């Protein structure tokens, strides 16, 4: 993931005033259509999309493109941690200005924030491996119990201590854990260490399903602390993954790859 724009402290600070949605391109046909509605060229949904939107998700507030560079300027192809300070500042300042224009409902907001779930366990392990973060699975066969668990965990997940520190997914059947080694089908908050390539994982802790939010703070902190992120560089990761035969097959066709393979011309940047 971006080591400049999306890791910039002012952008992260401004992001707390936004609802941040990060999708996995080509994993959901419906989401593909939504993404293409914001940015595509020649009818091709490209690998990456970035934009800022109104709270109803209908109107773009900055130019959509492949990355924040399209909206805020910067250097394409200059590598990691190489974006100009001025571009990152522009992104943070633009987000702050948008947040002033759309300050949210404040105290009039009804309900409580939901857990920021990923779509399913298979994708969640890949995403958490890519983020080099632990994954917390809310697992129970009972929908009622999962709801109670979600309510408790969401009080913790959005706190200053835990916000952005893990990914979350829900599971209702033990079969969803088929790629998780040493999984014992017990209801609970299952904290998973994803494998390097996110194709497998292993539980590093299972917290009782009935744990209250106040007790979760300590047990979750301990569990997340056991996570050991990969230390491979980008190139090492790619090289080792290729050698190991680690392959990811998207649920829907990779349109950008197909457009290139088919000899289709990619629109000019």
């Amino acid at each position, binding site marked *: 993931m971006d*080591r400049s724009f999306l890791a910039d402290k002012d952008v992260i600070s401004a992001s707390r005033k936004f609802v941040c*949605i990060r999708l996995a391109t080509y994993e959901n046909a419906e989401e593909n259509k939504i*993404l293409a509605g914001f940015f595509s060229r020649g009818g091709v949904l490209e690998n*990456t999309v970035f934009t800022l939107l109104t*709270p109803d998700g209908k109107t773009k507030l900055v130019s959509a493109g492949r990355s924040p560079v399209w909206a805020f300027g910067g250097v*394409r192809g200059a*590598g990691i941690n190489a974006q100009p300070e001025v571009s990152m500042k522009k992104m943070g300042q633009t987000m702050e200005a948008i947040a002033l224009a759309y300050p949210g409902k404040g105290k009039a907001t009804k309900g409580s924030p939901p857990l920021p779930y990923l779509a399913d366990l298979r994708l969640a392990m890949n995403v958490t491996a*890519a983020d080099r973060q632990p994954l917390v699975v809310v697992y129970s066969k009972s929908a009622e119990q999962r709801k109670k668990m979600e309510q408790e965990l969401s009080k913790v997940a959005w706190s200053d201590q835990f916000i952005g520190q893990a990914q979350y997914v829900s599971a209702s059947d033990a079969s969803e854990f088929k790629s998780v080694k040493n999984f014992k089908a017990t209801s609970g908050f299952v904290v998973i260490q994803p494998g390097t390539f*996110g194709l497998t994982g292993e539980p590093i802790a299972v917290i009782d399903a009935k744990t209250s939010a106040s007790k979760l703070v300590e047990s979750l902190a301990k569990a997340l602390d056991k996570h050991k992120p*990969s230390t491979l560089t980008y190139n090492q990761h790619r090289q080792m993954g290729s050698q190991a035969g680690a392959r990811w097959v998207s649920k829907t066709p990779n349109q950008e790859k197909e457009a290139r393979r088919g000899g289709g011309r990619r629109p000019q940047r």
Partner: protein
Amino acid sequence: MMNRSILLVGAFLAVPFFSNAQAEAPKAAAKAEKIAWHGTWKGGLTEAQRTGKPIMLVSAVPQCHSVPGVW
């Protein structure tokens, strides 16, 4: 030849936004402040409508040359 050039340029341009080459200490990075992402459009949009907050939308493939576990 043309296709190959396009492929190379595409890969090159994707690097600054969606590359994951980290040289920093991973443990320290894990505890650094990070953006909290909703992982589905439906979930995120529902939350934006509930709160009235604007949306930051990002999408990417969590693989590079089919190798997963990397943005």
